[in-house]
């Protein structure tokens, strides 16, 4: 069966370049980078090079990049570390209502430990404004953590501007850039953020490796203590192969960013244009400032998981923020935060494409989805009621 993978915001396939960059570090240069003999030196060199590549792609220097076990660890480290570092100054944190759970649940956990968290509401497009942030900062605010781009609706947030406001008030700024890195141009020095989270598997690197950019001079305490790797900041034998794969994938993404953005956003726009022809459909997220690969919708009168299953039967891999697909009773916090009523949010669909997708994939989706939606609506008592109301 034809498989059209359109869930690249969930994870991506590892690129050939990334895989090839990893392979030598499993069986050949398998040494521990902390050792001084030949086999270890090879590993150390590879790790150093990987760090330089990641740093370069983010517009900074190697000594500000720390490898982690993924985006979640990077987010946890940034937030928990700052909380510990600055607890004398205060215990107030500001974030948004649409962060990834790696940020949100970490903030919730800190609330149990005496921290106070402000979750900035967002508008219908998932945006927060400078004024909102300015108004929320207090004397005891120690951290602002706002994502660079949202994973469900693709909205890109104005990090540079928001960061400037935090800094005006002397507050540290972290951004979860997991969905942005490798997909849109991004320079930590230009953004001026203090910390930035990265996850390799979102840009065709392997799973289980990420990084945290920590601005020089910020003495973020470690989350994982032990052997003192990563300059004492993140202990644990370094995932050399992972770091090499991540660096290669990121380098490749940045190198081809212009052409990828052009190609991918054109495909995304075709998806959006084509699928908005379906009646009672809406785009979610910012119509202009959005990730090149994210086409996200709600389709009224049907439930998301049944759409995903039907698409799967046709070989299309996509995701939904409906309650059922998350295993809870509520639809995604992001969809409710942008003001969608629950019954509408349940009908959400996210198609996230990247440079591996083709125009034929888009054609196939455009031709496959409408009849699925029709079929599910035909099965839906809500649709029946709605139609009858109009006939009456």
């Amino acid at each position, binding site marked *: 069966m034809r498989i059209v993978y359109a869930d690249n915001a969930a994870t991506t396939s590892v690129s050939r370049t990334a895989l090839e960059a990893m392979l030598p570090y499993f069986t050949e240069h398998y040494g521990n980078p902390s050792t001084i003999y030949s086999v270890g030196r090879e590993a150390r060199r590879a790790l150093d090079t990987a760090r330089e590549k990641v740093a370069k792609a983010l517009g900074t220097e190697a000594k500000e990049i720390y490898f982690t076990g993924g985006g979640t660890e990077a987010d946890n480290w940034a937030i928990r570390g700052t909380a510990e570092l600055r607890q004398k100054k205060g215990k107030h944190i500001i974030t948004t209502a649409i962060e990834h759970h790696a940020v949100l649940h970490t903030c919730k956990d800190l609330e149990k430990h005496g921290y106070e968290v402000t979750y900035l509401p967002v508008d219908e497009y998932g945006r927060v404004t400078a004024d909102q942030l300015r108004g929320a900062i207090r004397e005891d605010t120690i951290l602002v953590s706002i994502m660079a781009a949202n994973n469900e609706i693709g909205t890109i947030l104005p990090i540079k501007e928001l960061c400037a406001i935090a800094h005006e008030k002397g507050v540290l700024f972290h951004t979860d850039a997991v969905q942005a890195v490798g997909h849109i141009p991004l320079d930590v020095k230009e953004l001026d953020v203090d910390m930035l989270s990265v996850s390799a598997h979102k840009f065709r690197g392997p799973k289980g490796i990420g990084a945290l950019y920590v601005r020089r001079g910020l003495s973020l305490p470690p989350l994982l203590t032990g052997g003192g790797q990563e300059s004492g900041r993140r202990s644990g034998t370094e995932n050399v192969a992972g770091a090499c794969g991540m660096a290669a994938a990121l380098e490749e993404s940045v190198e081809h960013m212009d052409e990828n953005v052009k190609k991918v956003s054109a495909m995304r726009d075709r998806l959006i244009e084509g699928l908005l022809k379906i009646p009672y459909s809406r785009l979610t997220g910012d119509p202009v400032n959005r990730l090149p690969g994210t086409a996200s919708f709600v389709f009224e009168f049907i*439930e998301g998981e049944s759409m995903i299953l039907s698409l799967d039967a046709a070989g299309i891999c996509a995701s939904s923020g409906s309650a059922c697909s998350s295993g809870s009773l509520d639809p995604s916090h992001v969809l409710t935060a942008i003001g969608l009523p629950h*019954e509408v949010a349940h009908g959400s669909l996210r198609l996230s494409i990247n440079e591996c997708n083709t125009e034929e994939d888009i054609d196939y989706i455009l031709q496959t989805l409408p009849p699925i939606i029709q079929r599910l609506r035909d099965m839906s008592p*809500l649709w029946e009621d709605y139609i009858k109301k109009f006939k009456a």
Partner: protein
Amino acid sequence: MYSEKVLDHFYNPRNVGELPDANAIGTVGNPRCGDIMKIYMKIEDDIIKDISFKTFGCGAAIATSSMATELVKGKTIQEALSLTNSAVTDALDGLPPQKLHCSVLAEEGIKAAIGDYYRRQGIDPEPIVGCSFDCEACHKEHHEH
């Protein structure tokens, strides 16, 4: 995550649609909660001669609707009332834990339709089918009272 049976009943649901000459209609669930199920029955001589459903909901909701209608079709009202959610689940070769509540919905849907049938006949359904599940509340919240 779903069994083959669940997927079969999702992709090829039995008894889907409206029943023009239904004399028993029950609706349970709440769109806010992401699933709503409407059961149509044609009951004659205490026997469920025909049955159909319409469901807004996830794969499990649709599959359990389909299976539940299959299980009670041609059965007596008494037999239908004794249908449990675990019987539906078992018939589908199980459901993932977080989906078990969907099978409750199917059980409720059958009962709500039968309740409607009694009500149309001027009989108070409560002593027979228990709670009639037609309250406004979300079926989950409902369960907590």
